[in-house]
């Protein structure tokens, strides 16, 4: 019997106390396409990084072509014929495609750009890629960059290719091209692992599907013998009953309305496409979706940090498009986005918690001036002097050139106390705090301003259970106070328990808005993966409120 191309047995990887992968077994046959399916944080990328030499497994063994191997660096992986195309491309912008592809290859041959161009063109021809070897990376579209990355791996003689969510950045047409290339590679005897969330694509391209859930290996099935529903069930698992409250509140007219919004990502691809939705006061609108399908761009567009291509954003019926981030914040829209590195947005890592508290409101700081009291029976001259003193004092108070750290420190203390932030003092640089505490500082600051719309993305990312519940509690309190909350989350169970309504995004497009208490996890899973679209179902455009505050003539 032929040896499998790759065999993983009992692979386990810890990050600190967290188990990222627990006893994973996986086999990849020669010349097959294996789809690796799983929710965010299910450990897919971690597992693949161990095969490609980025991480080293804590337990378990890896066999390549039946031979046991140790892979401790990307170089080792290449020597074994394993190549991975990461989600974030590692390319030199000012080099041409061919230069990037041959970079670092130690084949003992002299460097000749014309020969490299020829070799690249030959590989492209063989598998049906469309690429100009002489084109510079900075002139390329996302899909072209991805092509360069794939050829880079093939050029190094990889027989096992790992593609980490390759279709996430592609248009449907580009995806089809990629698939035909993948089929050509398969016909050439290459083995391919593709990580994806889109069930349609899984069904279309893969031979077998392996499913991971929360770091555990769930199973592996033949694509021809399974259905989308069965796969979704494997992926999301049974619904877990969480003890999260969902208080009933009076709901208001729409506070924030988004109409036909289109936003582009940094790379220039369309991140949010023709999106319409609204948030009412006193409700939590969940946003479900695979990571990187426009959540970040949506947040930034609402907060005024990203230019929008078309469409409108209305706050209480007034357009806020084109306003500065400060003006939007003044209207009561607060945004807290926890990026993967947790520090990227909205915080100054080397500055203290106190200093980070005043990022948004330092310009409103006063000196804490107290006007003198003027009594009725005061002598006119004395009263006049006091009036002058008060006028001058309040003028400088309003136009104070100084920040008021006493105020900020009080705010910091309040956040530390309310959100249970673990820190030596209010003057500790944020950089020194642990990830969860950094998050609490960021969220706490946004809540302090008493916003009427709170946009919060991944607020519990990486937090322990207690802190997470604390944050759910805070969000519920905001909801009861009449704030409209946009909750961008990862965990479907949490969203089903916490949110009133859930909007599902799939690659920047809305797949529908559903009531959390009247839907199922499987349904959400199907919508997230693009297999189910309820947005068009009812025959009326979803996401436009009947009682809109937007004037019709706009």
């Amino acid at each position, binding site marked *: 019997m032929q040896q499998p191309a790759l065999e993983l047995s009992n692979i386990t990887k810890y990050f*600190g106390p967290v188990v990222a992968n627990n006893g994973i077994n996986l086999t990849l046959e020669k010349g097959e396409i294996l789809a690796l399916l799983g929710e965010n944080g299910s450990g897919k990328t971690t597992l693949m990084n161990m095969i490609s030499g980025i991480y080293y497994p804590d*337990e378990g063994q890896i066999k390549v072509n039946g031979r046991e191997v*140790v892979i401790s660096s990307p170089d080792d992986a290449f020597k074994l014929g394993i190549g991975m195309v990461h989600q974030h491309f590692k390319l030199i912008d000012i080099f041409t495609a061919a230069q990037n592809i041959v970079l670092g290859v130690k084949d003992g041959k002299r460097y000749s750009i014309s020969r490299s161009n020829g070799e690249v063109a030959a590989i492209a021809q063989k598998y049906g890629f469309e690429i100009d070897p002489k084109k510079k990376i900075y002139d390329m579209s996302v899909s072209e960059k991805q092509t360069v990355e794939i050829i880079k791996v093939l050029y190094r003689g990889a027989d096992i290719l790992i593609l980490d969510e390759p279709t996430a950045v592609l248009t449907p047409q580009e995806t089809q091209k990629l698939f035909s290339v993948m089929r050509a590679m398969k016909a050439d005897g290459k083995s391919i692992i593709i990580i994806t969330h889109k069930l349609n694509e899984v069904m279309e391209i893969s031979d077998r599907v392996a499913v991971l859930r929360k770091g555990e290996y769930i199973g592996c099935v033949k694509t021809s013998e399974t259905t989308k529903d069965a796969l979704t069930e494997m992926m999301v698992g049974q619904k877990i009953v969480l003890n999260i409250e969902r208080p009933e509140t009076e709901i208001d007219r729409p506070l924030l309305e988004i109409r036909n919004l289109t936003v582009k990502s940094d790379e220039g691809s369309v991140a949010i496409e023709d999106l319409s939705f609204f948030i009412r006061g006193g409700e939590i609108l969940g946003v479900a979706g695979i990571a990187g399908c426009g959540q970040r761009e949506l947040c930034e567009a609402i907060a005024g940090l990203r230019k929008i291509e078309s469409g409108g954003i209305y706050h209480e019926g007034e357009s806020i498009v084109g306003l500065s981030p400060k003006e939007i914040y003044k209207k009561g829209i607060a945004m807290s986005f926890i990026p993967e590195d947790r520090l990227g947005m*909205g915080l*100054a890592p080397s500055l203290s918690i106190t200093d980070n508290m005043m990022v948004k409101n330092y310009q409103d700081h006063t000196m804490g001036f107290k006007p003198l009291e003027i009594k009725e029976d005061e002598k006119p001259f004395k009263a006049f002097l006091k009036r002058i003193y008060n006028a001058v004092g309040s003028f400088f108070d309003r136009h104070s*050139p100084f920040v008021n750290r006493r105020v900020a420190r009080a705010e910091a203390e309040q956040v530390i106390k309310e959100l249970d932030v673990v820190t030596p003092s209010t003057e500790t640089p944020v950089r020194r705090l642990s990830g969860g505490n950094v998050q609490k500082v960021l969220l706490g600051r946004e809540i302090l301003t008493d916003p009427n719309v709170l946009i919060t993305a991944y607020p519990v990312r990486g937090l322990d259970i207690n802190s997470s519940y604390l944050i759910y509690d805070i969000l519920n309190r905001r909801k009861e106070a009449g704030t409209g909350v946009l909750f961008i989350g990862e965990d479907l169970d949490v969203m089903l328990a916490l949110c009133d309504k859930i909007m599902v995004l799939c690659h920047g497009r809305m797949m529908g808005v559903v009531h959390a208490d009247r839907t199922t996890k499987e349904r959400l899973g199907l919508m997230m993966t693009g297999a189910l679209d309820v947005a068009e179902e009812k025959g009326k455009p979803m996401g436009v409120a009947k009682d809109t505050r937007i004037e019709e003539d706009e």
Partner: protein
Amino acid sequence: MERVKQPLIHITKREDMPFWKRMIVRAAAVIIALLISDIFITASSDGRGGFFEFFASLFSGAFGTERRFWMLLQNTALLLGVAIALVVAFKMKFWNLGGNGQVLMGCLASAMCMFYMGGKVNDGVICLVMFVASILAGMVWAVIPAVFKAFFNTNESLFTLMMNYIAMYLVAFFIALWYPTGTGVMSPLPYGNLPTLGDGIAGRVLLPVLIVVAVTAIIYCYLRFSKHGYEISIVGESLNTARYAGINVKKVIIRTLCLSGALCGLIGFLLVGSVNHMVSTTMDGNMGFTGIMVAWMGKFNPLIMAGVAFFIIFLSRGMSQVCTDFGFTSSSLSDIVVGLIYFFLIGCEFFISYKVHFNFIKKKTKQPPADGAVAEVEPEAQPEEAAEGGVQITETSEEGNS
């Protein structure tokens, strides 16, 4: 079968080091550098001085007479002033390497006032005009690169570097214009003397020193307590966060460099008005570059910077005495010693912010990877107790590889 290759020396970022330990590392660096210089100079001075005479000369050169002491104080103040001016820009991560040029432009503006107004109007008026003119000149010289940085992201370090030389030749141009038959040297003019606070050298030096002390205090407060200072730190920390906070980054860059240049111009004013009463192409005394050293080694903290500035001036003045006492004709010896101190002080920062693990020292009882139990050394998981001792090359036994 491939083996796990472990680097022999593993370097990881250090979280934090207590203040006293950092001071010990720095002091050790200075002492080592001084000892090396001492040994080198004693050995190459054909027996004119011994090991300890070196230090005696050093101190006598710096403090020996009242005049020397006041000169030490004056030069320290001027250097600190330039360094403070540069810190304003550095806090924003704007590499202002143009201190020399900005100081020179301040000098030139002052000298122009003296030259053209001297004898025609009251000395006090001249002083006032000099003050304004030099601040404006320094400001202009710093704002030009700032504008291009703000709008086109032009590399500011290269830009300011070029501006230094343009300033230098502008000075040469005006000297040549004013003294067409001369040798390119301007003689001191009797106008625009700054007031003195008492008699003799002490009285003359006191005013610039007091001005610099005041400026340092004001800038410290500006950076620490004002809204502008806060904006500067945010822009320096993260442009994303700055935009998020609604800060107009372009405005902050230009405004901050106005201040930085103005302060350099002020030092130029003091140099002409109080110290030299003329201008020359080397009047900046390379303070723009030395100021960078002071700012960097003083960790942008005005108090430490004052100490560093004092130490550098002490060294350079002390070393010229050492040169005389030990029979060296070249005064450039002081540059060597100061350069050596720089190397050690710059280098020692590494041991403050990084931890070094020597992997070859630990015992190797590596199991064959057959049972798959070889763990990667997780750099983040290093225990903190590795941070012991003054010099931070510590040997740690890593539990990762059992």
